[in-house]
């Protein structure tokens, strides 16, 4: 059985690593490179860097940050998201050291571009971020730039280019950053079942991780703010979760 993954999420806004709460409130953390370096040392299974203001401000990907992160010589696979507009951006992001890319805005703007990117990089390198929440039992997909929402059902979901996407990051945007916030109905009612899910947004407790990782289609969880509060946060989760198959905790010895 494939091991499931703990993915350290680093949210970057205006060049600064931040804690994010419900896509609306932010607290400063410090240098993105040092947060990333720390997750690498802790043995996160994957690191997701999401630069949340790049598309809104039409800045393109943060190549400068990627260059600095590339210089760290990480041993952990890296996902980059933020500002990717077209195939050239995607290729450059990978050439600077990212292993996979996270797309969000392109899903709304240019679905054919997703096919083009996947043909260039391979489907395994493309992850779709879908900020969602559940209202009256139905799941809504949010365009974070316009704050508009679309009801997701079988019909609307069929229009998405899911064959060109490897995994879907389901972000509970309303509960993002809030302890015990994640709405566990999200992976159960989400209308696409072909793609594996990564869950993110308000996952903070050991029993939550065990619970959602035991859902068959969930391959990993993203953890952001909650990794900044205690030393060895990743290792602590791995040490505590015994019912799920994860890479073992690693403590660096000099």
């Amino acid at each position: 059985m494939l091991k499931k993954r703990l993915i350290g999420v680093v949210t970057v806004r205006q060049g600064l690593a931040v804690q994010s709460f419900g896509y609306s409130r932010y607290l400063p953390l410090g240098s993105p490179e040092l947060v990333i370096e720390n997750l690498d040392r802790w043995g996160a299974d994957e690191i997701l860097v999401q630069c949340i203001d790049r598309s809104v401000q039409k800045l393109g990907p943060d190549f400068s940050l990627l260059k600095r992160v590339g210089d760290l010589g990480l041993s952990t696979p890296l996902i980059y998201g933020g500002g990717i507009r077209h195939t050239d951006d995607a290729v450059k992001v990978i050439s600077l050291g990212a292993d996979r890319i996270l797309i969000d805005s392109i899903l709304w703007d240019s679905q054919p571009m997703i096919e083009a990117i996947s043909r260039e990089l391979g489907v395994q390198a493309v992850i779709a971020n879908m900020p969602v929440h559940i209202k009256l039992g139905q799941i809504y997909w949010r365009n974070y730039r316009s704050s508009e929402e679309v009801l997701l059902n079988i019909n609307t979901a069929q229009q998405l280019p899911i064959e060109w996407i490897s995994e879907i990051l389901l972000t509970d945007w309303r509960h993002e950053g809030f302890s015990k916030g994640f709405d566990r109905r999200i992976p159960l009612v989400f209308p696409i079942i072909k793609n594996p899910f990564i869950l993110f947004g308000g996952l903070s407790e050991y029993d939550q991780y065990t619970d959602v990782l035991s859902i068959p289609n969930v391959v990993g969880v993203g953890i952001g703010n909650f990794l900044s509060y205690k030393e060895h946060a990743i290792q602590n989760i791995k040490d505590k979760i015994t019912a799920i198959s994860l890479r073992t905790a690693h403590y660096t010895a000099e």
Partner: protein
Amino acid sequence: MNSSSKFPPIKCRRCLYTTDHPLGLTIDEEGVCSGCRIHEEKDSLDWGKRWELLKELVAPYKVLSGRTYDCIVPVSGANDSYYVVHIVKKCLGLNPLLVTYNKYFNTPLGVRNLANLRIKFDCDILYQNINPVSVKKITRTTLRELGNIYWHCLAGQTAFPVQTSVRYKIPLIIWGAHQGIEQVGMFSHEHAVEMSRRYRKNHDLIGLEADDLLSIFDTLNEDDIWQYRYPDDATLKMVEVRGIYLGNYVRWDPKMQHEKMMKLYNYLGANLDRTFDSYDYVDCFNYMGIHDYTKLIKHGYSKVTDHACREIRHGRISREEGFSLVNHFESKPVPFIDQFCQWLEISPRSLAFILNQHGANNRASVGYDGNYEYSQQKRRAPTKLLDPSEILSKLAFESATSWELKAGDQYITFGKGWSKNDRTLC
């Protein structure tokens, strides 16, 4: 400098910080900074409940045999040392081992306050005296590379307690306030953030660990830096080391706390040239001197801004009054340059040359004639400037005038005694 510095700075509408703050700062839709927002929690949290959480947290660390210490408390001759030990020993009933790093820039009052702390609280204390030759070599390197003379102090103060925790197998370290919370609102108090290697490297050490200082182009070597290494992850795990911050459980107000410590234990403050706070940094010749000026050169503001923001948030002064105090103190002369140059064995012209290379703004520089030039032209007062003496009277910081530093005073480089002069211990 944080990586957000390429974005135009935005000012907080409540305090005096901008998004250029080296720890990082965010501004919300109402124009209020993260530091001010998190400070609001001080008036909304149930501190009684948080105190109970603290008691629960420390209870397992109480050593019933009494044959070792319950926890480690890092102290200096100033800052919040007295209040932390007061809380730990008198209120929580723990038996702490105090640890202190000798920064070599000790003032007579700092040494006096530290000795008095040890006596009044009847605690054991460990001093770490690093070979002064290495300390000077490190200081020369960090001054040249980072424009920072205080790296060794911050590295030592943050590594020695953790090394001691490992060496003595005392897992719990208790710190005072978390600087990132107090200044920029990095975390909510309810996040109960704990000490971490990442925070230390990022914010205390300006991104450079001890090993990062080594270079083939420098005389600094392994023998000079090993004492500043943070224990590795496997060792921290083996001892289950954790460092907690009292500020997450106790409503933190340094001014009120210091005044309480003065009454209870005869803590003493002294007037400092470049700030109105006479309590915080009286243990050091340089923190409010040359180190303060390097902050102004590199970041465009100095420590008095931190003090003013704190007092604004606590509601003791207005934003306009805070600005007036900053305006008054930032331009004060930089004291004890000669002592620093003598200690580091460099000339004042060399110091001026290095400092000017690190200037990231046009507000402060150093002339080769030793004139520390400062420009206030780029700062615009929110309204008119107010008379600082009236504001200072209102704030009423206390000081022991007999302990104020004089021009010819010298560093006390060995920390166990105190100056034999007419100043008395208590």
